[in-house]
């Protein structure tokens, strides 16, 4: 029988098979940020094991709270910074060069097809967009990864998610993944890998694929994964041009990772997304999702555009299409956090930052900040936030706060109206005004 992409990656990285159901894999990249890594560093130091397996394969960033907001977060940054210096970790991104990990690391070309990647962060699944096996892990796995360059996983079982149809204007990868999570439920993919295939995925940009894979964990999945193709090769070209004679050669090489036609899957699901409406969450679980039209009119206090899910340039462009020439409602606080410095500069060059600011948005530096309720836009009890992030857990953006997850376009339309709003009429108007 043939193999899935995940099985191929496992086979190429297998270090040990402690039982038929478990695999210990060699790691290509270990990623680190300042929330979950310092405690691992402290523990390794305390055990007299303050070593790294390969400083070139470790990439680190201070992104969750930056600039630091108090002594505790300053200390976390310092522990990571000192460690990166001590071990000569060249790819360490500190203030001025830092951005949200799952947006920054791909942008630097660190993630390649066929790679194994771990990080002490559940949204590490984002990097599966490149045809890598990328999984979030806890601190102990991170420590072993840092020390030994290995991680253990159960045998990879895959759910094949074939997505067909045509995305309407105003409907995005975010809406597709919200709908998938609603369909699978929050644990429908636990211990499974979600392999996204089909014409809709083929047509998606790398940024859209990252949005898709980012939320695989919200259905419980170990990893989301897309098959690496010409879009992947074109995105990575600045980083791989020394390795391949041409983009065509890279595309041909990437095919080695594609799932075989006779590969075995735990299950296969077919999804036709034609006619899909923009999606919005309503409860405290990411599978509590409804069509925007049924949620329309829900009052919000804050609109947050940013995060590893939707803080990239294409996201900002879509929101700016709606915000151009409009003001956000007087009752709403609008916050934009471009996910990386590169996104920020690009948005400045394209006039997008100006559009946001003229609409009444506050623009922060690249950081996680409000997404996990730590800084730059924490909610008060009883407040409601329309957010382009990935988690609507009770208290996620501030104790007693409520979060509605949605696409950047829906968030922008919501900011303008002050209540949850379908972005499609706004986008139609913007289009007509242009003609």
């Amino acid at each position: 029988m043939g193999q899935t992409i995940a099985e191929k990656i496992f086979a190429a990285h297998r270090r040990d098979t402690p039982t038929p159901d478990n695999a210990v894999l060699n790691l290509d990249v270990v990623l680190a940020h300042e929330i979950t890594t310092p405690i691992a560093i402290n523990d390794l130091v305390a055990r007299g094991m303050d070593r790294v397996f390969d400083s070139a394969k470790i990439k680190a960033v201070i992104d969750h709270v930056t600039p630091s907001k108090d002594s505790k977060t300053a200390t976390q940054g310092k522990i990571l910074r000192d460690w990166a210096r001590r071990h000569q970790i060249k790819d360490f991104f500190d203030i001025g060069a830092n951005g949200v990990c799952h947006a920054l690391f791909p942008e630097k070309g660190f993630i390649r097809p066929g790679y194994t990647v771990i990080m002490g962060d559940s949204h590490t699944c984002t990097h599966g967009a490149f045809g890598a096996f990328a999984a979030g892990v806890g601190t102990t796995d991170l420590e072993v990864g840092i020390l030994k360059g290995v991680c253990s996983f159960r045998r990879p079982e895959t759910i094949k998610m074939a997505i067909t149809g045509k995305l309407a204007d105003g409907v995005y990868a975010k809406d597709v993944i919200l709908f998938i999570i609603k369909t699978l439920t929050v644990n429908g993919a636990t211990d499974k890998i979600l392999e996204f295939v089909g014409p809709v995925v083929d047509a998606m940009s790398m940024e859209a694929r990252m949005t898709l894979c980012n939320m695989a964990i919200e259905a419980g999945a170990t990893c989301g994964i897309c098959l690496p193709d010409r879009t992947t090769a074109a995105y990575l070209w600045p980083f791989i041009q020394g390795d391949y004679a041409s983009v065509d050669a890279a595309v041909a090489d990437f095919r080695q990772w594609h799932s075989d036609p006779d590969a075995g899957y735990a299950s296969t699901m077919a999804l036709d997304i034609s006619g899909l409406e923009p999606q919005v969450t309503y409860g405290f679980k990411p599978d509590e999702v409804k069509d925007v039209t049924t949620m329309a009119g829900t009052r919000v206090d804050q609109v947050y555009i940013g995060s590893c899910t939707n803080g990239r340039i294409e996201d900002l462009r879509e929101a700016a299409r709606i915000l151009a020439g409009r003001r956000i409602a007087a009752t709403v606080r609008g916050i934009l956090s471009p996910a990386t410095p590169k996104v920020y500069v690009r948005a400045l060059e394209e006039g997008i930052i100006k559009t946001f600011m003229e609409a009444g948005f506050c623009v922060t530096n690249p950081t996680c900040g409000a997404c996990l309720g730590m800084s730059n836009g924490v909610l008060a009890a009883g407040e409601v936030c329309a957010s382009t992030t990935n988690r609507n857990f009770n208290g996620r953006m501030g104790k007693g706060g409520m979060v509605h997850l949605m696409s950047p376009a829906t968030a922008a339309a919501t900011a303008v109206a002050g209540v949850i709003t379908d972005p499609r009429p706004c986008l139609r108007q913007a289009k007509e005004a242009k003609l």
Partner: protein
Amino acid sequence: MKKFGGPAFVLDRSDINTDEIIPARYLTENSKEALAPHLLEDLNLDGFDPRDEKLRQARAIVTRGNFGCGSSREHAVWVFEKNNIDLVVAESFARIFRQNMFNCGMLAVELPKEDIDAIVALGPDLTLAVDLEKNVLMAQGSHKASFAFALNPFDRELVRAGGWLAFADAHY
């Protein structure tokens, strides 16, 4: 091998996430001990009080499906460990939480819904004991009952080794 069990506390709800177990605002702590007072502080469960004496005395948790979903934070495991709870019995776990439990040498036991129903029915004065040789969970409440469970052999190795760091250091 280590002994697991003791007085148990029931959290009768599915999908309890890591933000409920230990909120993100405590992730700036750099010691595991500092987490201990904040166990389940934001749990959304009718009638639940995180200061409940019974919770403080518990050595085990019994709960429903998809326990520990959400973030990868191992803090969600340490906050139990630092409250002397090293056994969680659930209908199912989120992958990262389950892996973090075994990585710390702690025990995550999965039982079918009917068994969890039966344990919950034993009432509030519940004590659990685990026989890791026979893979049996013994429960004592209004009466006695026992339940067979399956344990992944590698996870058993991790419990035996006292966690993944010790295992990996010995093997790789």
